[in-house]
Structures are given as C-alpha cells and as structure tokens.
C-alpha cells in the first residue's frame, strides 16, 4: 500500500546485559492514523515508541528487525542521517513536560530550534507558526506565551506547549509517550482535547502510548496491547473494547469495574476514629494552604480524599500526622484531643496513626531486610523481641500474601513494585494502628497490581477494623474502595458525603466537573463531554 508510513518488522530490543525488552514486534501504521499502545510498565511500550524514531535508550540495543519509515530502513542508516528524521519528520512528546523542557531556555527558543536546525523554517516564520499552534492548543495569550520559561508555566500548559513543539516541523508521525499521565483529570481532559484536535487538523499519524485504556479509547483508531515485550492482540479501537479476544486484555478491562458494596455508616454514638475541626494551616508565613478543614473519619471505614494537585490533600495528612502544626483548629482521636505538634504526642498516640506512601521505592530503606523494616515498628511500639518479634513479622508477611520463609530476609531491591507497596502496608500494620493514611498508594502501580493492593487493603480492614484516609486523584479507585468521599479544592473541603451520594447525586459544580473529567472507555466519551461543556 502506498500510504504505509511506518512498518516495523520483528523488532527485538534488549538491554546490554541481555535482558529482552521487545521480543519481535510487528507494527504498521498508515498516514494520518493514530495507534494506541497499551500495557503495564515493563511491557516495552516506550521502547517501541522510541524505536519508531530509530532511537534506543542508553544501555539498550537493537538485536534484530527493521524499522521502515516512509520506505527507508531507519536502522540501516548511519546515526547522522537518522537524526535528520527526528524532530523533522518524526516528533516525540514526553511524559513529563516539566522535565523535558530545558529549564535554561524560553519556550519559544525551544520551539524554533528544530525547525531552524532542520532547515524547515527561519526563526521569524517559525515564531509566527508557534503563535498559531499555541493558539490552536488553547494556550493563553499565544503571542507572548513563548516568552516564558518552563518553570513559569503550569504542567497542563507545558504538556500542550510540548505538543505544539512536536508539531513545529509538521512531522508525518508523532510519538506520544504517556502525555497526560502526570496531569490531574480536570487538566487531562483539556490536554486530550487539544492533542486530538491538532492531530486531526494537521493529519499527522501518531503512536499514542498509555497505560490508561479510557484515554487511549478517545485517541486511537487502532489499539495494540503489549505484555512482556510481545504483542497480545491488536484490533480497531471499538472492537478491542467491546470484544477483546485475549484473557489478558479482558483482565485489564475488568479492573475498572472493581467496586465495594455500600456499607451503612457506623452508629452515631461511636466517636469517629479521627475528627478534624476547623483546621487551618500554612507553610511559613505564606498564604494558608488549608482553610477551615473539618472532616469526620468514621471508625473502620475508608474515607477517600480527592482533589487536584495543590488542593491540600497531602497537607491535611501532614497536619494529622503532626508533621505540620496547624495555625488553628482541633484534631481529635477517638473523641480525645490530639496534640497538634508531633513532639507533644504520646507513644500510644503516635502508634495509632500510621502512613503508607506513594513511592514504596523511596519509602523503604534499601539496606534493610524485610525483617528489619517490618520488625522495627513492631519492636518500637509493641515491645516485641526475639521469637515473638520473629513470629509477628512472619504473621504480617503472611497477611500481605508474601510467603514469610521466602521473603523475610530479602531487601526491597529484590521485590517488584507491588510487593514493595505490600511491605509498606505491613510496616504500617506492624504498629497495630487505628488510623492509616494511604497517600496515593496505588498511583505508581499498574492497574492489575493496583487492584491486588486495593483488595488487600479492604481485606485487612475487615480483619482489623482499621480506618483508612485514602488520598488519591484517581476516581476509579475511589469508586472501588471508598465508603465516603471528601472533595478538596484550593485547601478547603468543598463537598463531602457517602460515596454513592457523591458519585450519583452531588450537585456541587466542582465535584461534577471532577467526576465528568474521568475518562470512560466509551470511545465517544471525550467528544460527548466536550460537547456538554460547550453547552454548559
């Protein structure tokens, strides 16, 4: 066919040490077509995306196969000639725009660099084009936008600026590598809409890499599912979603439908596990970051705290743990006042509140064995030693479904991401707490792994009666496990209620906006939502 743009045949990529990343992938893409690449981390999506540019990351190499772009085998060309394609005919949009723009240069200079170097346009022409594209991407004040430095621009705007930059030479193909993963849902929807309209207007072909099915369903004409460097299946978007052929694809879909049945509120006579009353806090002498926050955390329940980044979710957690002393307001633990500052709290009070962190990688000491990591709080709070301590650590390991005999002397480096997060949970449980703060505990994990963690948390709650404060920006997780929901915006609680009330009946405009922004696998979702907003 003449309009075949990218044709990858039997591509094999491995690390220099020999570990395979791609095990013989075929991919073909026509002009103007958008293909979604989906799979969990380690599936080889990004490696495949980069290989389409004839590029491999340092420490990796291509062991076989061919990458034909517009009839030329990129892999057979010398590096110098491959460079002529990059940025000019194949462009790349990275996951973290904040890290992928050079902090030392203004956005416009970064925009015009590729067109000037590739001889596509002179500076003045390219600048005029930048203004046009910034406008199309819905960036504010397009004529002056480029004069800013990357740190002066928000994450969502940077991601749009990066898409505009990728368009600068009007490439035939753009590789989008998780372009909205780092964004809040409310920002994500705007960026998705902007990307989609520009890709359509300019008729570029695209590879759209993501782990989020719902997102790829809005963007792609066809979807390819990858796992462990191999293709699972490929089909047109509608068919892959409505009738997936492979078990693995179906399991990806199923995760989205995890829900816990609604539970009645505990009796009013009981004290809540934790209560915040009018808490106001700030960092330094700056503006308040928490304004009059009041939340009741019903005992034995999961209370999800949701909101965009900067809404005060994590700051609320810091106030509860005592790391940040509020300016005013009270915190009560089981009806008794809790001292605001960490150093005034008793050991029993410290024991009652534990935390599980987003990045298990950095929250676990890589030099310690699981015995030490989990044993430490058990010894410190529980006073356990010797055989009793050993038994307790084994019991906790069994509780998080890690075979004690096999795992007790391992270090975090020998665990997978999901296993590390399980260890984080065991460490929190080791103190035998009443209240656990889960700060985005599943957002760094793949969907299937995250699902396992959520199920584990729910089971542990049924066994121990612990209360969870579940901080997240992922509303499908909230739907899966929360009993009630607190919505925060700009440091204040704007809406709260039972999960079903919030999801089905809340009339608060911000809550509605947040809920409507969560992508659905329905391929028309983006179009429909944008149309509704246009009317509203």
């Amino acid at each position, binding site marked *: 066919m003449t309009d075949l743009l990218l044709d990858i045949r039997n591509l094999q990529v491995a690390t220099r040490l020999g570990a395979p990343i791609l095990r013989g992938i075929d991919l073909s893409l026509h002009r103007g077509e958008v293909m979604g690449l989906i799979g969990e981390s380690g599936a080889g999506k990004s490696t495949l995306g980069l290989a389409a540019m004839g590029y491999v990351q340092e420490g990796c190499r291509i062991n076989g196969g061919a990458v034909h772009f517009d009839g030329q085998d990129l892999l057979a060309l010398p590096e110098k000639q491959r460079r002529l394609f990059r940025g000019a005919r194949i462009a790349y949009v990275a996951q973290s725009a904040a890290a992928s723009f050079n*902090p030392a240069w203004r956005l416009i200079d970064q925009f015009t660099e590729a067109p000037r170097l590739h001889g596509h346009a002179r500076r003045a022409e390219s600048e005029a084009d930048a203004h046009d594209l910034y406008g199309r991407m819905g960036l504010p004040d397009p004529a002056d936008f480029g004069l800013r430095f990357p740190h002066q621009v928000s994450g969502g705007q940077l991601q749009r600026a990066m898409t505009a930059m990728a368009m600068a030479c009007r490439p035939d193909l753009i590789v989008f590598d998780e372009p909205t993963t780092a964004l809040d849902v409310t920002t994500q929807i705007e960026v998705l809409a902007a990307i989609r309209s520009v890709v359509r207007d300019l008729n570029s072909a695209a590879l759209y890499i993501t782990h989020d099915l719902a997102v790829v369903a809005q963007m792609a004409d066809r979807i390819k599912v990858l796992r462990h460097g191999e293709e699972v299946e490929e089909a047109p978007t509608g068919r892959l979603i409505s009738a997936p052929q492979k078990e693995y694809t179906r399991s990806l879909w199923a995760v989205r439908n995890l829900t816990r049945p609604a539970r009645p509120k505990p009796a009013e006579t009981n004290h809540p596990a934790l209560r915040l009353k009018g808490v106001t806090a700030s960092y330094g002498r700056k503006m308040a970051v928490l304004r009059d926050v009041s939340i009741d955390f019903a005992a034995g329940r999961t209370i999800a705290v949701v909101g965009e980044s900067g809404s005060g979710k994590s700051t609320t957690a810091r106030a509860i743990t005592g790391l940040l002393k509020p300016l005013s307001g009270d915190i009560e633990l089981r009806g008794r006042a809790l001292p605001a500052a960490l150093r005034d709290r008793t050991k029993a009070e410290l024991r009652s509140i534990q935390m599980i962190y987003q990045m298990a990688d950095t929250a676990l000491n890589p030099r310690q064995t699981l015995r030490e990591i989990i044993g430490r709080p058990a010894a410190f709070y529980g006073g356990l030693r010797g055989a009793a301590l050993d038994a307790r650590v084994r019991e906790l390991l069994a509780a998080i479904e890690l075979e004690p005999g096999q795992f007790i002397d391992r270090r975090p480096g020998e665990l997978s991401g999901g296993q590390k997060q399980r260890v984080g949970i065991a460490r929190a449980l080791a103190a035998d707490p009443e209240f656990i703060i889960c700060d985005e505990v599943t957002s760094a994990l793949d969907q299937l792994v995250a699902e396992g963690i959520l199920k584990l948390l729910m089971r542990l709650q049924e066994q121990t009666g612990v209360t969870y404060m579940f901080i997240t920006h992922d509303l499908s997780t909230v739907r899966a496990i929360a009993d009630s929901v607190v919505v925060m915006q700009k440091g204040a609680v704007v809406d709260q209620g039972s999960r079903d009330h919030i999801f089905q009946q809340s009339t608060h405009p911000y809550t509605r906006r947040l809920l409507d922004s969560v992508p659905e696998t329905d391929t028309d979702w983006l179009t429909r939502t944008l149309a509704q907003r246009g009317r509203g």
Partner: protein
Amino acid sequence: MTGKARLLRMILGRLVLGLLTLWLISVLIFLAVSLLPGDIAQQILGQSATPETVAALRRELGLDQPLLQRYLDWMGTLLAGDFGNSLSNGRPVADLLAARMGKTLFLAAYAAAIAVPLALFLGILSAYRRGSLFDRAVTGLTLTMISFPEFFIAYVLMLFLAVRLPFFPTIADYGSDAGLIEMLHRTFLPAMALVLVVTAHMMRMTRAAIINLMAQPYIGMARLKGIGPLRVILVHALPNALAPIINVVAVNIAWLVSGVVIVEVVFVYPGLGQLMVDSVSNRDIPVVQACCLIFAAVYILLNLLADVLAIATNPRLMHRAG
C-alpha cells in the same frame, strides 16, 4: 520585584555579610598572631636585646597594652584606611602591599587567562567524548597533576624548560621597566605551574557537571529533536551546568591570588605570598595582618561574584513563576 531588583538586594545583603565575615576574620587573625611564640620585641632586636631595649621597644609598639586595647587601636587605624607601618623597615604597609599586589595579580591573571578557557575546553570535550581514549587520557593526566605537590611540578618545569633547555629564566621577577612581552616571558614558568594545578580541578568539575545532566529528560528530548551531540552539550547541557562551574572557577582564582606562596618562593617571585612568609618569620605583625585580611577579602569577593553569576544565569531565580 523584578529579577534585577532582587539580584541587587541580594548583592547588598551579601556585601554586608561579607563585611561581617571580614570583621570576624580580623579578630581571628589578631588572636592567631598574638599566639605566635616568642616575644616580638625580643625577636626584632635579636642579639642586641637587653632588658632595657626590649622594654623600650615593647612600649613603642604598644605591646605593654592589654590585648583588647591593641585590637581596638589596630581596628581604629585600619578603618581610617591606614594599615600601619612595617616593623622591620618602618615603611607604610600600604606601600609594601601595593608593590607586591601588582605582581601577584599579574601572575594570577596570567595563569587564569590560560587555565580557565583550557579547563572549560578540556572539560566539555571530555564530556562530549566520554569514555573515549581522549577522555581517559585527560582524566589520567589531570589526576596526576592534582596528585603532585605544586613545588614538584614547579621544579620539574624549571629543570626541563629552564635548565636543560634554557627557554625561560629560573627567576621570574621582572624589572620595573620590563615590557609586557618580557613580563610574560619571565613569569611563564610559574604561571605554567599554576595552570597545571588549577586546570585539573576546574576541568574535572566541568566534565562532572555536564555528565551529571546528560541523564536529564530534556537532554533526551533534545536528542529526539534530531539535535547533534555537540550542540546538545553546548546549548542544552552547558547552560544548566554553569552554577557549579562558576563556583569552582571562583575558588580556583581565589587560590591563584592567595595560595601561590610556594610557587612564588620556588621562582623567587616577589608577590604577596612571599611577603607574608617573610613577614611571619620577621615577626612583622602589621604586614602579616594586612596580608591575611587581603586574602580573606579576595575569597569573600570572588565567592560573592560566583553566587551573583550563578543566580544571574539561572532563569528560575531571575524570572519568578507567574
């Protein structure tokens, strides 16, 4: 506030802090000098010391006063712009310093003018060719230079370029009527010795600062825009590596002004360093104190300059988020 206004305020603040530091150093110097062993009057008089002459000299020098009084007197004259008079020849310290300062600054500028560009060039090139034979050769060579004491390098240079092959004089001092060419020629060997020592340090820092950035996503992005490796380093990595490079350059230039005592002695070059060494052995206290203060001021000023430049080249600090 605009970036410039903030920068100006920061400079003023740092100057005030610098003056405070200088004052603390003056106290330390004064105490350290008063701890020098032996009675100063006794040392100065040497063989001709009799109890009467010593007592008379002590009175004349004010050494019979309490320590605090002597410090206040010294500070008083210093603030009036007077460094006092030398004890060994009675000439004003300021005049002595002025003559030596010119020589020291000339040698430092000479060495810096060669060493700084050379270090940047080698550092960038070895980062560009990381892992190559060139990189390893430069790394090996610079490590060798760092490891040798500077007097050794100085004597080796002298042996080969002045004694075996008499291209350059062994005594670096130039007369007052020497032209620039002659000055450069006479001071070539000490300047070379200094260049070899400081280039290694600056070059390694430049290389490390650039390589450190090469794993940044924006470097990967630049490559994916089809930009060649040299431009990636010069245009995308270097501007972000300036702060550490500027810092190491400033420290090395400060060392060139104040730390070159040994090289000056080897080449019999009458700079500030030699003046200070001589003054310490002569117990010429006002000169020692003045030299120390000048060295301290050089360090403080160059560090201030480095900080200002590091801020001025960092858009995050010059242009507020907005």
